[in-house]
């Protein structure tokens, strides 16, 4: 059982200490922090225009400005719903590892992580329930386990990192978008601030865990891991094209609409933008041999 403890370096411990201190310094009370107006204006975009899933396509033209505004509202509820479900999954994984053999060293940081994620989950759920009157459901069941514990540990933290990096692309853009309502900017800004610590931690941890795999596994198995993570990225990108969202936005053939967007080459540059940072990290660390994502 190697997990983390047997692989730690001085650098890792130093960064953990620094990030733990930052967590304490930046600590805030989320239940008092936010200004929640009774409602948000329907005549504004709720999500940055270039983050809307139909942006840059003929379908955006077909919807027109008011259709795109409505879509932006429901896509923002979908984005926060994805966060709620993503956080539940990552909390489950981290909670099952904290203070267990092999995870003593990062456990102090896990306490910050778990506490902060619980609060993120609360404010994302709060936004959904206040302004969308719903949280979109998550459809992905857990179907199979990985037999090799080290590979399983690596994949768990790699998935968490990729999820947090993608979310951060949206958070950062929306926190800086002056056309959005202040409450929307605030939710995204505060999450972005906390996530910068989680992402810094995640990159260190993922690099460390990969080191142990690289020493032990053959090239074919390493490429299999690359293939899986690439499919995870594509799966994450596709979760932003939600047919239930299209239905709520008043689009008649929601699955057909989704299919047309997924097939539209003009969407690829926007999708690439959302995964640019994690992709370059994975290529730089040698976890990925190239930055080509599967198309099917």
């Amino acid at each position, binding site marked *: 059982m190697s997990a983390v403890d047997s692989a730690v370096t001085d650098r890792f411990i130093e960064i953990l200490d620094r990030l733990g201190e930052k967590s304490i310094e930046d600590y805030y009370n989320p239940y008092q922090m936010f200004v929640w107006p009774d409602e948000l204006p329907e005549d504004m975009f709720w999500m940055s225009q270039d983050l809307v899933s139909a942006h840059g396509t003929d379908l955006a033209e077909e919807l027109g400005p008011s259709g795109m505004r409505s879509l932006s509202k429901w896509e923002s509820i979908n984005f926060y719903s994805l966060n709620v479900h993503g956080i539940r999954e990552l909390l489950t994984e981290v909670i099952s590892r904290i203070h267990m053999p092999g995870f003593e060293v990062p456990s102090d940081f896990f306490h910050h992580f778990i506490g902060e994620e619980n609060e993120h989950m609360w404010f994302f759920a709060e936004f959904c329930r206040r302004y969308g009157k719903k949280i979109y459901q*998550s459809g992905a069941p857990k179907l*199979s386990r990985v037999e090799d514990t080290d590979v399983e540990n690596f994949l768990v933290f790699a998935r968490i990192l990729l999820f947090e990096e993608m979310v951060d692309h949206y958070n950062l853009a929306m926190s800086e978008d002056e056309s959005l309502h202040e409450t929307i900017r605030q939710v995204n800004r505060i999450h972005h601030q906390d996530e910068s610590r989680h992402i810094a931690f995640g990159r260190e941890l993922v690099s460390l865990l990969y080191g142990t795999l690289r020493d032990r596994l053959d090239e074919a198995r390493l490429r299999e891991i690359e293939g899986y993570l690439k499919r995870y990225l594509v799966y994450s990108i596709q979760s932003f094209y939600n047919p*239930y969202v299209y239905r709520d936005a008043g689009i008649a053939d929601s699955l057909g609409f989704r299919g047309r967007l997924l097939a539209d080459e003009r969407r690829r540059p926007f999708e690439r933008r959302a995964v640019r940072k994690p992709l370059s990290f994975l290529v730089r660390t040698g976890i990925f041999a190239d930055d080509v994502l599967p198309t099917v």
Partner: protein
Amino acid sequence: MTSRLDPVREWILARHPELDDLDSHLDLIENRLIDSLTFIEFVFLIEQHSGESIPMDTIQVDDFRTLNSIGKRYFQLTD
């Protein structure tokens, strides 16, 4: 013989070039032809081709295990 299930069969085969054909009773999940990352796409595909809406909260993974069970549950097919 063609079947309304053909697009479903072809979708799986397209993702698994190592397979020549797909037995209707093969467990797609046990054999990892469908996993957590493809499950939702797979549900959407079945929804589109069966014309039946599949609300997320009604999903029973066992209904999706084999082409046979999918046919029975969503395409009103018998054995």
